[in-house]
């Protein structure tokens, strides 16, 4: 199974970016063979609106079934739910630490939106 982490840079020890929609990079980690790839989220970074929705599209295209991030807004959450992607929230400082906590079963799944959208 693939899992996506929001990251500030393209590396497993990079700081975990607490924002979903405006995170510059996604670390796509494959739990089956312990390898990872990077997916750029530059288009969402540049978007005037709909960054969370676009980020959800990018995550969906990686084939991941779970997302680990800091916070997730209402539209992004709806889009991720529609794509069947589970969302986990963490305050882990790095992607590596978040992965460790995920594996240990310490992360709880977000059942609803935890931050307000920017239009509401």
């Amino acid at each position, binding site marked *: 199974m693939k899992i996506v982490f929001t990251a500030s840079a393209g590396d497993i020890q990079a700081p975990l970016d607490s924002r979903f929609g405006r995170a510059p990079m996604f670390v796509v980690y494959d739990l089956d063979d312990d390898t990872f790839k990077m997916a750029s989220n530059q288009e969402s970074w540049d*978007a005037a*609106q*709909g960054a969370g*929705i*676009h980020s*959800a*599209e990018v995550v*969906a295209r990686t084939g991941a079934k779970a997302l680990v991030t800091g916070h997730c807004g209402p*539209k992004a959450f*709806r*889009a*991720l739910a*529609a*794509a*069947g992607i589970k969302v986990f929230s963490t305050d882990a400082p790095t992607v590596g630490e978040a992965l460790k906590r995920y594996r240990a079963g310490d992360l709880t799944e977000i059942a609803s939106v935890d931050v307000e959208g920017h*239009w*509401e």
Partner: protein
Amino acid sequence: MILAIASGKGGTGKTTVSVNLARALGCEIQLLDCDVEQPNAHLFLQGKPLGSEPVTVSIPLVDESLCDGCCECGMFCQYHAIVCLGAKPFLFAEMCHGCGGCALVCPKQAIGETERRIGVVETLRAQNVTLVQGRLDVGVATAPPLIRAVKARIQGGTPVILDAPPGTSCPVVATIRGSDFVALVTEPTAFGLHDFRLAVGTVREAGIPFGVIVNRMGAGDDRVHAYCQGEGIPVLLEIPDDRRIAETYSRGHLVVDVLPEYGGLFRGLWDEITQRVERPA
């Protein structure tokens, strides 16, 4: 003649200029309040309501039995109003600007349209002024379609004043587009100058002749004037930093009614702009 009153910074005096200019002219005038997120010209004109019409935008309606999940629609939409997250498109109606592009690019003709209400256009009458204002519904983020609906009420043959929203983004562009002249209102302060420069960039990009109205003249410094001189931007009007103007405004009254000595200033502004439109430099 269609004159847009705009500004980069908010609170510089767009509505003050718009409503007082409309009243001071005395002749038949159409005033369009295009600040549809917060229309306020009606507070000063106290007009009699003539009517209110709902405004809708066309949003996509997907027939999933025809959709094969190719995602052409999602790749086309720049507003992320329709996205593909698996087999079928997923709609965020509140993001849709109603352009209809998704329906056009769909190779299976699986996308039709349905209407979504975004606000109302209200018409009021106050002496010589017909006020048309848009009022966006709470929670709606797409102002440009409503602004276009307001402007669609323009009657040819009567002068038009457009009271624009502040800033330099899409609602401002939707307002000033098609106007003959833009008067940018600023104040002679550092903040005023900063946002005025952004507004100048927007209006230049739009290719519309423009000039500046400096409000609260005497309150700040001369950097706005120095900038205008360097850029060749005409100063159309200077409104003094007169406490009585602020008091009149705060009570919801018109400056030209309470302080008639200012009437000539606004009529002079109109003459100045008319000359510039009829005889461009």
